[in-house]
């Protein structure tokens, strides 16, 4: 399908139309932007930098039921993800969309994870290109992304000032575009070229970068390096860097019972927590934050690429922006390169 134009004053109507699906869009709560299920287009905030919590939570909810049961009854009732129906994530950043394609590797290797994959199948991703980098700590271009990246997106919106240029990237995107076709018009000649120009400028505007070549091989060799103690000294051991990472995917499984009914559910977990690896015997293979930090970096930049051929980091900068003590993954990687 040819490129379209969605005038900004029509955006609300388009969102209204899309809200017949399960529609997630960035919305403001106080000063925090989070992806929320939107019923009223007025809640959406499309003029935003980036969401604090990545939209991974739509396809990989922080807590989700795997199956339900009644005590004393052997029947296990599987959660039916299909029931959630068609889902649209509107206005996500290209890095966050790319992150989902990275996580897809994990959830589909060997055993297929039915919950995640079904949700991915049901979800259409409508991206919002980064005309200006959302933060000084964006470094998507260093890890295979682009401010105008289209990877894994079904539609890409480019903010051209008065209007959005809508690029249709997949059939799924095409179908979605049709449902809001009446609010859009054909893109005038030159719009694509203007978008190209903006893309180039956005790429130029990225202020941080890292040369990742060689890091994958180098990390295992730095196992005993003193650098890990140095970079983890300030670490508080909280879950910010992992929970807010669009590619982090570790989870815990717990059973919950309320009266005679129960469920087995899974919830995000973080390798930065002490309990994460703690054995029942009291032994902990990663006894301090030093080992946990080493694991976090190594997993993203060495183990994951070793297994799936892609770095498990999209350069969104959240872990740098939001770390309470300014632990900076680019600084750590810089030290790895230098070491």
């Amino acid at each position, binding site marked *: 399908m040819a490129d379209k134009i969605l005038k900004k004053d029509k955006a609300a109507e388009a969102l209204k139309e899309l809200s017949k699906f399960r529609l997630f869009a960035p919305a403001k709560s106080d000063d925090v932007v989070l992806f929320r299920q939107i019923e009223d287009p007025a809640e959406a905030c499309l003029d935003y930098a980036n969401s604090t919590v990545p939209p991974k939570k739509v396809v990989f909810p922080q807590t989700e039921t795997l199956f339900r049961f009644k005590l004393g009854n052997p029947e296990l009732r599987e959660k039916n993800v299909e029931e959630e129906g068609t889902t649209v994530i509107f206005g996500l950043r290209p890095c966050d969309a790319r992150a989902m394609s990275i996580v897809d590797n994990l959830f589909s290797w060997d055993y297929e994870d039915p919950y995640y994959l079904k949700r991915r199948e049901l979800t259409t991703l409508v991206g919002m290109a980064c005309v200006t980098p959302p933060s000084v700590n964006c470094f998507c271009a260093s890890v295979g992304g682009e401010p105008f990246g289209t990877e894994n997106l079904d539609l890409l919106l480019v903010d051209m000032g008065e209007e959005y240029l809508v690029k249709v990237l997949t059939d799924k995107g095409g179908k979605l575009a049709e449902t809001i076709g009446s609010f859009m018009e054909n893109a005038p000649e030159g719009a694509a070229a203007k978008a190209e120009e903006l893309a180039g400028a956005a790429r130029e505007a990225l202020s941080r970068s890292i040369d990742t070549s060689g890091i994958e091989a180098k990390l295992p060799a730095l196992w005993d390096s003193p650098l890990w103690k140095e970079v983890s000294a300030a670490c508080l051991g909280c879950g*910010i860097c992992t929970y807010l990472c669009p590619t982090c995917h570790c989870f815990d499984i717990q059973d919950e019972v309320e009266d005679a009914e129960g469920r087995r559910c899974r919830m995000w977990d973080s390798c930065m927590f002490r309990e994460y690896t703690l054995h029942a015997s009291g032994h902990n293979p990663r006894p301090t934050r030093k080992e946990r930090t080493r694991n976090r970096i190594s997993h993203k930049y060495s183990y994951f690429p070793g297994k799936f051929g892609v770095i498990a980091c999209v350069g969104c900068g959240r872990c740098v922006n939001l770390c309470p003590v300014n632990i900076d993954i680019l600084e750590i990687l810089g030290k790895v390169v230098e070491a």
Partner: protein
Amino acid sequence: MVDQAKLREVAREVISREDVRLLIGYRPGTYGFRARPAFVESAEQVEELVFTPACVSNLASYLVLEEKPPLPRGAEPDNRKVAVMVKGCDSRALVQQMVEKAYERDHLVVLGIPCSGVVDMARVEARFPGVLSAGSIIREGDDFVLSFDGKTEKVPAAELLADKCKRCRYPTPLVSDIMLDDEVERFAEDDFSDIAELEGKSVEEKWAYWAEKFSRCIRCYSCRNVCPMCYCEDCILDRLKPVWMRRSVDISENTAFHISRAYHLAGRCIQCGECARVCPVDIPLMELNRKFYKDVEELYDYEPGLSTEATPLLSTFSVEDREDFIL
């Protein structure tokens, strides 16, 4: 403001002492205006130390955060002292930790920094976005002077000051071995006006307010981990037997988490504001802590973190304690 050269000189002397193994201070961050904790183990490292209004962290947390895995057989633990730089508010955490017997006074060398207020980094970054190269913030009278990318900007202090500083009762450290500057007179009072409005609302309005805040919580536990008073080795949040708080993230468990966190700080919170600062989804955690703080002061005339001779609030009582609600 603290003379940076003097600060380094003192730090050099302290870390050179044989009975000191570690000095915890501040150094410039990796970008923009940020500053971050510094862990100095040798005299060579002192050159990077700074103290500026960007030094927001409460370093007292690190005294109780250290993880001590079992030592290899035959190895002796390093029991030498730890030196730590503290602002007025941070020093109260040390006092309260000692009240609770987290460690002995002579475990520490305290470098006190009389402080006229630190910035709210979120406000600074919102006002001057996109600053990557190292910027500096200094205090000049009633203004903060920010220098970055070759520019200098003067901003009235009140516009960038952290909220906790606007009501700081104890700008000068209450405990110190070496004071790095002249005492700062109390420049603000705390009348709890920030929570008065909410206190005056109906229970329905209150719950609507908190339900929205708690529903955002992602349970990263940064508020717990950053807190200098949250240092139980075995936290009930991590307990699986019994399960106090389920790990599932929903309004019920999130509320339970916030009640537990705040209650465990009743009569212990020393108002450093770190929890609210680090929360990635901006839950106003200090509004919870301050409710307790206010009630404790009002009911029991008690302020935590003022004297190492004090008894923890809930380990004591008075026969005369109010009981007007008891049937």
